[in-house]
């Protein structure tokens, strides 16, 4: 079976065609212009993931929230579940890029880390 998809690993968005066997494994991947496209296609067929970005509450900061992201692509189907945890989290200024906001979220082994600096008011 052939599956068509768009690689979202980078903004170029190459159109991919993936040949899938009965076991649901990718046998051949075409259309990608770099290696990441291949990795993307494989994961999209078995366990689709996306980078998760949002904000968490920040006490005493210049802004009342600070942006965060998942340290690696996050299982697509569990994003809203993760949002519930993140929205309950609160950090205190100062915060810096890379600081962990939520460790090992939903036992995925993925951390949620801060993506901007806020030195506080």
């Amino acid at each position: 079976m052939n599956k068509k998809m768009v690689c979202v690993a980078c903004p170029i968005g190459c159109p991919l065609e993936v040949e899938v066997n009965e076991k649901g494994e990718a046998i051949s991947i075409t259309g990608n212009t770099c290696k990441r496209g291949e990795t993307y296609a494989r994961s999209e067929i078995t366990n689709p993931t996306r980078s998760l970005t949002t904000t968490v509450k920040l006490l005493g900061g210049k802004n009342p929230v600070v942006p965060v992201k998942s340290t690696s692509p996050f299982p697509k189907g569990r994003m809203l579940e993760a949002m519930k945890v993140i929205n309950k989290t609160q950090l205190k200024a100062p915060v810096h890029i890379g600081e962990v906001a939520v460790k090992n979220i939903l036992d995925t082994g993925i951390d949620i880390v801060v993506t901007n600096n806020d030195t506080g008011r």
Partner: protein
Amino acid sequence: MDRYDLVVIGGGPAGMAAALKAKECGVKKIVVLERAQTLGGILEQCIHAGFGLHYFGEELTGPEYAARFISLIEKTDIEVKTDTMALNISEDKTVTAVNTKDGLLEIRAKAIVLAMGCRERPRGALSIAGTRPSGIMTAGQAQAFVNITGYMTGKTVVILGSGDIGLIMARRMTLEGAKVKMVCELMPYSGGLTRNIVQCLDDFDIPLRLNCTVVETHGKERLEGVTIQYVDQNMKPIPGTREYVQCDTLLLSVGLIPENELSKDIGIELDAVTGGPKVDQTRQTEREGVFACGNVLQVHDLVDYVTEESMIAGRSAADYILGKSSRDAEFIETITGEGVRYIVPQRINIKSDEDIKLYFRVGAIYTNARVIVTIDNKEVYNKRKVKLAPGEMENVKITTDMMKEMNKDSKLEIRIKI
């Protein structure tokens, strides 16, 4: 009157890259004027990932991309004036600006880089009938509310226009618990990147309605709903396709306009299609010593390209200040052929001793079309493209070898062949 070698207007990704490059090339006194409280520009509210893959070789969020440049600037003696609004540029390259600390500033510069970015097309520029309740705003305003002040702007959302910010906000509002009912796009195709359609709409089952627009807004104090309607090929509403959609928020993502009030002040001619100044390959405008880069020049879809372009402008400004600009010059205009909406740079110096990248956008969606470059009707480049879309900027390289074949009357054209 203060004297500087270089004044950079705008401290977003364009201004920061231009200033840094100029510094690296040996310019001494540089000042960056930024209207907001911090450097970073629009990147500060673009908390999603997808930045930096080309330039840094890794995927960063907007604030992270900006932070890398901010920390580089902090390591130099480039002066930064935030909360500072540039008001005017005069013929002799004096920039008038104002802030609460210095009051009125008059800065005489040897060169100026325009890096003011762009703004969103407001609702006023669109004619939608109906009431004017609250709950109608541009996608970028909503983005600032949600991502910077942590304030959710509504619970049920309709988005008009499928530009990237609109698509990104569809996902953002959904993640924060809002119900995004649909994205309406007047054109038969989306103006955003395909990847954003996939990961911002398809992932959350948000419908994208093409050839469809909002014709009326309803509600007294707060928006209560909108009427949508499909349009035909001539953009005329099709009778009998009106539909009422309940929503408390309408986000507009209907295009970006380069902010060129300052450029107009000094009489710089703007390209009618890009809305930005006309430039040559060094990104110099028609005013000597005034350069432009980033979204003020042409609206980009990738910040990485903004950085690339701004480094060209920064380097050229340095050459100009240090008297290293090439004196050997012969200009020709680039010609937009069939299917091509615009080309930047609009003119090139064919005496250049470096290859030149021409950036362009097509006017419609093409599959398996060819990008063809001709010099005096002779093909010098012909490449098949699986896909070409108005939302995705393309580029071709004009080599020095090609330029050797040209003279001041040569015609350099890019066109699309189906």
